[in-house]
């Protein structure tokens, strides 16, 4: 059985794509909902125990 050619190239390309997809998403502006949630938690306010309770999108 011949090993597939340029296997490491393919892996490196896949990892580069993974990194790019991940970093593009990770560097998106974080929705206010999360920074607001953190300040609510900090001030000890009641927070919705389910994400689904925020109906307005």
């Amino acid at each position, binding site marked *: 059985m011949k090993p597939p050619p340029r296997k490491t190239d*393919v*892996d490196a390309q896949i990892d580069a794509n*993974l990194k790019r*997809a991940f970093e593009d*998403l990770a560097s998106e502006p*974080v929705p206010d909902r999360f920074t607001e949630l953190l300040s609510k*938690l*900090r001030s000890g306010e009641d927070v919705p125990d389910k994400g689904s309770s*925020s109906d307005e999108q």
Partner: protein
Amino acid sequence: MSNDPRDELVEHLGPLRAFALSLCRNSATADDLVQDSLIKAWTNIDKFEPGSNMRAWLFTILRNTYYSLHRKRKREVEDVDGAYADTLAQKPDHDGRLAMRDFNVAFDQLTAEQREALVLVGAGGFSYEEAADTCGVAVGTIKSRVNRGRARLAELMSVEETEAIEITDNVTAGIVAKHGAA
């Protein structure tokens, strides 16, 4: 000592969302997952070991939340809305944009377990050991998920490559045929 680890949570929001999306592939579900995970992290902050890897700790919370939710409402969670592909499509002038869309379409076809292993190791910079801890499985299991995920992606994407080559060859063949006939 004076540092409250809860102050660090905000630094991990972006990666946490990206990880959530790589698991559930639906932006509304992903954001709900992040919210639930943040609340859990906040209320269980005493279980976080200062100085250890907070991102890995948060990812563990998020994936546990995901899998308990997943068992409850499998169909809903699996409703992929192409969040990865849409996000990338909105980015102008990326030369590899089309290739990235193809990649994301292929990525959607992996199992959630393969996706998380690939994201942790391939994109998140986790070692196999850290990824294994995060997922609560053996190192060998993570290695095999990464290898299978990579092999599947390569297979899915090389199918497209082959098709592209065939089209080019047909065009070439057509041109050659025309010239030959002329």
